[in-house]
């Protein structure tokens, strides 16, 4: 994901939460070999001409820092810029909209995650160091999530744990079907265990039972993790009426979240699409 020379896009928000994105970008492993593109909207730069220079100073020591200005609003600027260049990672702070504002204007981070086919790091109250990473491996994109979490954890020297949530319940008098690797039902856990074993991943696998969003967020909060890694949903390619749980997880997470898109994250199909 973050190979030497890779390009990273950081959206510079003039609001105080814009600092979160810069602080998190500064924590990325191997940043001295990365190229950072600092993006701001025309309106924000007009209102504060020194915005991007100050942001660049926050990333001193990076391989390269370039400034980009695009017409707003923020999500449109990020999506347009991501369409122009292949970025290895986007770092975006949330807009801080409440539920009603999200209903009216949509969610900035959800729009970016849904539209951009690159990993998106949603920066939210980053700690001084990323020491504990939780990877949600309930989805059919477990392989990519495991790989992304392992790469970040290795680069940062952080401990990586994985959480699998079994959300399926048995229907009364359903026929007993023997487990099939990679299929639905409880076989997803076996598939995740096999992915972890194949990649020689250390760290614990937390197995929980319940509603996926609630269990992942609870595991994140109760384990005092610094970063959550999830696989993005299938977006418009999912069956009609399907729901992207990754969106709900990233909107509800109290900390920073790395969303790994389907193209990067797709692996052997397990039980859940989140």
């Amino acid at each position, binding site marked *: 994901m973050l190979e030497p020379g890779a390009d990273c896009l950081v959206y510079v928000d003039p609001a105080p939460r814009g600092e979160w994105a810069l602080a998190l970008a500064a924590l990325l492993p191997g940043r001295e070999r990365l190229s950072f593109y600092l993006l701001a909207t025309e309106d924000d730069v007009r209102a504060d001409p020194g915005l991007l220079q100050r942001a660049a100073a926050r990333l001193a020591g990076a391989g390269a820092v370039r400034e980009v200005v695009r017409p707003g609003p923020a999500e449109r600027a990020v999506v347009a810029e991501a369409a122009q260049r292949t970025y290895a990672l986007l770092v975006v702070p949330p807009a801080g909209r409440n539920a009603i504002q999200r209903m009216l204007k949509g969610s900035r981070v959800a729009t970016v995650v849904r539209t951009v086919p690159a990993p998106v790091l949603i920066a939210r109250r980053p700690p001084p160091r990323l020491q504990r990473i939780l990877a949600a491996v309930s989805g059919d994109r477990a392989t990519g999530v495991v790989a992304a979490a392992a790469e970040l954890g290795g680069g940062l020297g952080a401990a990586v744990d994985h959480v699998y949530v079994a959300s399926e319940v*048995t229907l009364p008098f359903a026929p007993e079907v023997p487990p099939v690797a990679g299929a639905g*039902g*409880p076989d997803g856990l076996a598939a995740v265990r096999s992915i972890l074993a194949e990649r020689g991943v250390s760290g614990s696998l937390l197995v929980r039972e319940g509603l*996926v969003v609630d269990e992942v967020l609870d595991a994140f909060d109760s384990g005092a993790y610094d970063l959550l890694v999830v696989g993005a949903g299938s977006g418009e390619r999912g069956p009609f009426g399907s729901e992207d749980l990754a969106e709900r997880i990233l909107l509800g997470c109290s900390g920073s979240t790395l969303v790994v898109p389907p193209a990067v994250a797709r692996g052997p199909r397990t039980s859940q699409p989140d």
Partner: protein
Amino acid sequence: MTARGVLRRAGWLLPGLFLFILSLELLKKGAAAVGPLLRGMDVGGLAGALGFGWMMACVVLSGSPVAAIALALLASRTLTTEEAFAMIGGSRLGASFVVLVIGMLDDLRNRRTEKRSAYIGVAALVSTAVVYLPALGLGLMALRAGAFHGLRLEGRDVGSLVAAVYAPITRLAASVLPAWVLFLAGIGCLLFAFRVLDRVLPDLQSRPTPMSLAGRVTYQPWFMFAVGLGVTALTLSVSVSLSLLVPLAARGYIRRENVVPYILGANITTFIDTLFAGAVVGHPDAVRVVAVLMTTVTALSLPIVFGFPYAFERLVDGIARGATRSGRSVAAFVAVLFLVPLILMLL
């Protein structure tokens, strides 16, 4: 489905309707025997009718026949309008209770210690109770305020047609059978009518449906709500539409995120056959009580589905997980809930 298949299914419609109306007429004729029985059991008032509907749905393993019986008892003046209303509400709670008992038996049979299928039953019962209990209270106020006053679906022509066709049969039956036998025959005929009407329903199992992915894909709450509405509009019974999930959901699993909105939708359209029964029993309030309950249930379900589906799911999931944590906790939950209708009947 081929045209021949459609015709074959449609061919069951007339016998099904004939038996359905016949059963209601038999129940009305035999209801005279039920009044003293209810009084003998000291069943009366709203709580008693609620408990009686609940208990009866447990006995006949379905809610729809009990709701139809409540309307027949209303038409024969054995129950008041409010008691019939409460009994119909109780029948829905009993139908959910049946799903729970079936799930518990399935877990016992398979000696399951995790992913218990009793979860579905608890979720069905809790979702139904949380919506229906306030809906019954609201509905009662609406009934007393005269909501839907004068709402009729039956017409003079239908009434005279029913009388012309069924009066000779029920008169003959009444002349040779005691009232309580007529009532029991009515229940048997009603259950048989539902089985015949099942043959009219489209074969959902042979078609790809959203439910075949419900074990793997999480759907939006509004979507599963619509699926629950649609499937139960065809099957007419929550327990049947829930049991339909077994062959439809791939490999016998459903994701718990999909369960609650499906049940909320199913709980609304399950009244369609009861509305029809209300139209043919010939009591001025029969359609009204069903319409009031259907409206209040819908009015309480829609904000849940479109406003705070996840909080509601969390509530139901928390209770269902707690109740199905062990075999003992399921048994305790079922035992307590079995006592509720009994206590209501004794109040």
